[in-house]
């Protein structure tokens, strides 16, 4: 058992499950939005595009997609940081670098999350 306090779900299974579920949500979102774009053709106006995202369904779906991107990205970036920014590979400075990388990732993802929700629900 290897404990960690910085991964998303506190255990391996939760992270693995969130990664899979969020992946499925993002795939579904891409297909739905992609299908809309294909059906709309080249004459899609701003009003149509804006109206499409004004529906409650698209707001809820887009919020789920934003949450999925943030959680998916955090689990992925956390894995990258604990693969490559380690004491085994870089020596003692790795802990500082890893924490800095994780903190920067958290700030960016949190900003995207709040900004996304603001755009969708304001």
């Amino acid at each position, binding site marked *: 058992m290897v404990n960690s306090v910085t991964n998303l779900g506190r*255990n391996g299974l939760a992270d693995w*499950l969130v990664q899979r579920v969020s992946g499925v949500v993002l795939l579904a979102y891409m297909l739905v939005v992609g299908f809309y774009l294909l059906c709309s053709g080249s004459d899609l106006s701003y009003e149509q595009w804006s109206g499409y995202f004004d529906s409650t369904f698209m707001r809820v779906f887009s919020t789920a997609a934003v949450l999925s991107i943030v959680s998916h990205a955090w689990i992925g970036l956390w894995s990258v940081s604990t693969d*490559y920014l380690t004491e085994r590979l870089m020596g003692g400075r790795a802990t500082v670098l890893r924490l800095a990388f994780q903190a920067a990732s958290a700030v960016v993802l949190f900003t995207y999350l709040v900004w996304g929700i603001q755009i969708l629900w304001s």
Partner: protein
Amino acid sequence: MLKVSLYRYNPEVDQEPYMQEVELDTGGKDLMVLDVLELLKGSDPSLAYRRSCREGVCGSDGMNINGKNGLACVTPISEALKNGKGGNKLVLRPLPGLPVIRDLVIDMSLFYKQYEKIKPFLLNDTPAPAIERLQSPEERAKLDGLYECILCACCSTACPSFWWNPDRFIGPSGLLQAYRFLADSRDTATEERLSDLDDPFSVFRCHGIQNCVNVCPKGLNPTKAIGHIRNMLLSRAT
């Protein structure tokens, strides 16, 4: 003449590892890679590698042969050259990812530490029967494809996740063995074993790229065993 490129490193003499180019007359025979090494060692006794049974049972002579991990004793030269890397030259390197002690001999301490972690023995807290714990043929069949692992380390040292975290990720070999005991009807420590594995590193660093399946000289499938462990963790937690 067979051209051979050998990874050489003696920390008592060499500043850093180097590749030694040698040629060997095989008499036109399709020798095993271990036979090539034996012939080379005849002319240069300083060449170091591990070997024992010479028939793919002991798992001692795992090494990187033309870019692919395998057992030198059961890999013919013709098969090694088919790997593509090295052209018509036989290129022999130690298994990647673990420290080199000398030439083709690696320090397998971390590999064995991970194996030790999964408690590779039956745990049973019920009173021992007079003779033995019986299994039905169906229960015994569940161990096929699991018990045959010879701990050669070809799989774990072909796994990038094990390269980056050999101290935290159990690795394909250890996880195959972990499932061997989880699947055993005579073992009663399933809950304890699963609890020990449910962290972000031990099992879940496997990303399913199947390098382990590709190189296993016994034809085993650690990725499938890891999938079974994941399913057991999932059904236990949901």
